[in-house]
């Protein structure tokens, strides 16, 4: 069943058309991959789907509900979480607080002006559990800014997971990671796929082909191919555009 759908999305910045008639559908409990060369419009596509930019045309629905043009915070509260290609953390604070802030139950306490931030042990434990999932539990009480790069990428994912999402958008989670960290991430995503509907932008083909149930290839702001990894392997367009870029 399609949980999230984008129909005929157009987006331009000034004279530059970045997305041209993009339609995508993401099935519940599946991993959907998006690939394509740099500058193809993948991140912009995520930005439109998650409310950072309103589309110029087209319709976006989540679980049957029209969410086109909603503000990102409203989309987020519906259970749509995302990570960012360029990291977006709360750097001046603790690792655990990055995750805590993203918990819906903590958001419920947002108007508390006299409570203490870590006083609810249930919430702190929930945040630790999320950190444990990405392997950061033992760095929970360190400064976010002090984490090494790979751990910051993991934290980026943890913040998205903390939102208890019904669908998870990950923008190039492996970018900048070494081989070992990439493998660790693959194992993490393999575990997450049991629990989440995931949409993942990835330029590392091997990584994506091993993970995704379906893949859409975006080039020049359009979907040029779509299918299972096996189907795409056979597609000559994919070989020429996306695959060619990476190889």
């Amino acid at each position: 069943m399609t949980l999230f759908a984008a129909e005929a999305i157009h987006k331009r910045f000034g004279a530059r058309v970045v997305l041209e008639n993009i339609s995508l559908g993401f099935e519940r409990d599946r991993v959907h991959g998006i690939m394509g060369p740099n500058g193809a419009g993948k991140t912009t596509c995520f930005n439109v789907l998650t409310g950072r930019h309103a589309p110029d045309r087209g319709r976006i629905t989540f679980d049957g509900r029209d969410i086109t043009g909603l503000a990102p915070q409203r989309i987020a509260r519906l259970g749509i979480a995302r990570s960012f290609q360029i990291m977006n953390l709360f750097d001046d604070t603790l690792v655990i607080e990055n995750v805590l802030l993203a918990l819906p139950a903590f958001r419920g306490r947002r108007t508390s002006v006299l409570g203490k931030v870590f006083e609810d042990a249930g919430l702190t434990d929930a945040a630790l559990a999320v950190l444990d999932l990405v392997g950061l539990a033992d760095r929970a009480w360190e400064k976010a800014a002090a984490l090494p790069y790979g751990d910051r990428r993991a934290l980026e994912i943890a913040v998205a997971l903390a939102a208890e999402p019904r669908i998870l958008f990950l923008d190039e989670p492996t970018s900048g990671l070494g081989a070992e960290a990439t493998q660790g991430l693959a194992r993490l995503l393999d575990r997450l796929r049991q629990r989440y509907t995931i949409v993942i932008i990835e330029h590392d083909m091997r990584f994506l082909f091993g993970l995704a149930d379906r893949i859409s290839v975006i080039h020049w702001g359009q979907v040029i191919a779509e299918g299972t990894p096996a189907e795409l392997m056979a597609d000559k367009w994919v070989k020429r555009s996306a695959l060619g870029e990476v190889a």
Partner: protein
Amino acid sequence: MITLSDLSAKGGSPVTWPMGLFLLGLATAPFWLAPIGLYQYLGIEIAIWILFAMGFNLLFGYMGLHSFGHGAYLGVGAYAFGLFQLHVGTSLWGGLLAAVLAATVAGAVVGLFLSHRRGIYFALLTIGFGQVFWFSAIKLHSVTGGEDGLLGIPRPPLELGFASVDLNDNAAFYWFVAALVALVVPLLWRLVNAPFGRVLQAIRQNELRARFIGYEVWRFKWATFTISAATAGLAGGLFAMAQESAYPDVMSLHQSGLIVMMVLVGGGLVSFWGPVLGVILYFIARDVLGGLTETWLLWYGLMFVVMVMVRPEGLAGLFHVLRPGKGRA
């Protein structure tokens, strides 16, 4: 890096040593101000400005919204206190309540216009609104007394039921102001370490991410603006009592600039206590440098410039470096 968050990561227990030191200083000031060559009224001024500065820093330091027109809310509080005494009746609590309410309403209304703005647009609008209040104070002659302002505002006595304390005596008035400061400052400390305050700081650090984890950023900006205006209003009411008058200068751009300088010099960007240091330093500079030279404000201004250039973390930054403070809640 030293940041506001350093301090509060430990969970915001109200019994930290700086809080203890602060309250101790507040409680003992009358006994050592005169012996070290200062005077009672200075203590009153410092205490009032500490209130103003700490509420202001909630917005400036914690939320990262740079208001350059905050004198307006100090002024609104001062005028509201005066108008209450002159037209409604002589009442301490009535006047202070009027001061806080008027400033809260003014802040809430202005905040609606500001809370969707950021950066230079936010700053320019705060100046614009500040000028609107200042101009109104001068032009609404029949209400505000024009350029002269409201004169002869009484200091109503503090009614304790069993006794009535005459606040015309500066010593008694100091205790009253100090008691309010001792109430408000720990409340602000709790606030910045409560979920609400932590969200503010998250928004300052990364507004985009805050939105993408579901926070209505503008509401936090609005609420913070309003709270800081309310605190300024309380300070303004007390200021009207201290000066026994309210006049347009209270809400001038000069005043708004002073509070920014005090907070920055003290280290409001990195510490809850920065504004306290900044206020004390300013008034000491005024009285000590001012006793030596008429150009003291020039020297203070130069000190500000040097501070911003070499030690943007302000005075509080110096303490931070010395303090290894680390660890979990």
